[in-house]
């Protein structure tokens, strides 16, 4: 009996959060959080990309906001200025951002560690400046409004309620794909590169090629997220794609546990809620950088595997102690 109940647990573990997630946007449940949940879903897509790159492959990027912004601007410009179908624009954005990441990846990955961090940081800054300065296309610092909604057939994603499901469909799909990748031979190759590059090469793993591939994948994730963002806000400006955005993605990834795909949701949610609900207060302006820095330090020291895995381990320890006391009634 007990064994059977235990075997059913995994289904419950998957089903319960899913039902919860589906119910959130309904007004009688947690409807007032729909908007922030949409942002969490979008940000999670960017975070997962960085988890794959940083947590699994061990390659730092402080320029993820560049790819996020490229997806956003390509979607915005194509769908608004050139009246391209928004889905096609999204696809073109992902392809173009992926191609751009591929083009810069080979020179970038000749660098390691801090140098890699600096190069990607520089990339982020350059792309941000382009968004601001190419104002005849991007609308400059003021941005551009009136971006159309996404739609499927007759279903137009014109309310936050509908967009919530759209965003979380994409987000969960990406999480699932990433989880599968991580558990595959590709995932092992990535972890091998993180573990030791010389040893990885000695067992026929092409280190550079995998770094490039995963960099491109993370860029595509970020680009898709950017596209979803502009079709949600129906507005785009350079503001969400600056240096601080790249740092926030890194903090979210670290918080969620760098080498944990599902942790990305929790890390992203924790930081997003903190930044929107707490640090957005007028008396706290300017403190955000201090707080993110402190979080990075505290998490790295006390929960080096991130909030998600850290709490899971605390739970395991608690369960073990519970079992030791002879809890079978």
């Amino acid at each position, binding site marked *: 009996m007990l064994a059977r109940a235990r075997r059913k647990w995994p289904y419950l573990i998957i089903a319960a959060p899913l039902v919860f997630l589906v119910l959130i946007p309904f007004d009688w449940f947690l409807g007032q959080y729909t908007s922030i949940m949409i942002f969490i879903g979008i940000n999670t897509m960017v975070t997962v990309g960085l988890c794959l790159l940083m947590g699994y492959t061990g390659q730092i990027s402080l320029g993820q906001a560049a790819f996020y912004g490229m997806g956003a601007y390509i979607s915005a410009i194509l769908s608004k200025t050139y009246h391209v179908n928004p889905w096609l624009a999204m696809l073109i954005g992902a392809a173009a951002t992926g191609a751009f990441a591929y083009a810069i990846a080979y020179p970038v990955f000749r660098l390691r560690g801090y140098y890699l961090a600096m190069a990607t940081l520089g990339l982020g800054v350059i792309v941000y400046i382009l968004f601001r300065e190419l104002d005849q296309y991007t609308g400059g610092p003021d941005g551009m409004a009136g971006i159309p909604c996404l739609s499927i057939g007759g279903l137009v994603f014109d309310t936050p309620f509908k967009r919530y499901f759209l965003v979380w469909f994409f987000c969960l799909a990406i999480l699932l*794909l*990433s989880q*599968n*990748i991580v*558990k*595959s*031979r*590709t*995932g*092992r*190759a990535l*972890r*091998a590169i*993180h*573990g*030791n590059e*010389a*040893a*990885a*090469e*000695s*067992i*026929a*793993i*092409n*280190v550079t090629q995998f770094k490039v*591939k995963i960099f491109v*994948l993370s860029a595509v994730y970020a680009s898709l997220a950017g596209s979803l963002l502009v079709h949600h806000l129906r507005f785009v400006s350079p503001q969400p794609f600056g240096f601080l955005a790249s740092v926030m993605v890194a903090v979210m990834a670290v918080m969620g546990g760098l*080498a944990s795909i599902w942790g990305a949701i929790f890390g992203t949610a924790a930081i997003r809620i903190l930044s929107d609900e707490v640090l957005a207060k007028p008396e706290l302006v300017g403190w955000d950088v201090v707080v993110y820095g402190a979080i990075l330090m505290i998490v790295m020291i006390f929960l080096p595997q991130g909030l998600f895995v850290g709490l899971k381990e605390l739970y395991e320890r608690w369960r073990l102690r519970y079992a030791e006391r002879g809890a079978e009634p």
Partner: protein
Amino acid sequence: MSEPILKTDGLSKLFGGLVALDKVDISIEAGKITAIIGPNGAGKTTLFNLITGVYPSSSGRIGFRGVSLDNISTPRRAGMGIARTFQNVLLFGNMNALENVMTAQHSRSRYGFLEAALRLPKARREEETISLKAVKYLNLVGLGMYARQNALSLPLGQQKLLAIARAMATEPQLLLLDEPGAGLNTLEKRELGDLIRRIREMGVTIVLVEHDMDLVMGIAEWIVVLDSGQKIAEGTASQIQRDPRVISAYLGEESE
């Protein structure tokens, strides 16, 4: 004598002004256990690094089964059937023992990103083969019961065995072992000797760099002696033990 599996011709390596290897000609006979010995700094590990392509040679050629290895990258050489272990072991500390070995099945499996992401049948089938083979190689070195342990939590002796299992999981024709006996106790060394012989019986050619003379004399069928980057002698164990150049390289010149 049968066709050599590996052959170097006038192989040299300079690091700046330092000559690490000086016009070395070595031929490794297929199916044999060859030991490369020599004092510290003789160029033994450099030789391994050149064979596996960690860095390019300064001059000379390396041929593997009649194919020149020039301009072939390290991972591709591994895919061609050259596997190695490292002096400092270099296991993947972020994985358990089984995963370390599974990872080495990389070049023996094909499915890619997309098949992995969508968990297509091909990916699942190959995953099954990968884990079965990994268990097989883990059992070969006798570490089956430590499959789920983190690789770096194992004691050094077992780490070294795991490194051999990982190298074997690439299904090589040529296995290069860099000081497999270093840091092992007498019993572990005897077991290591048995393991190396077992691997030879599987049809894998073995080249080992080793300082432990009991181990070398016990298992090596051919011995190559390097000193200061040059090959000073080669032969069977008994020939090497009597060679005056080898004795002077190890014990120093006799002063008159």
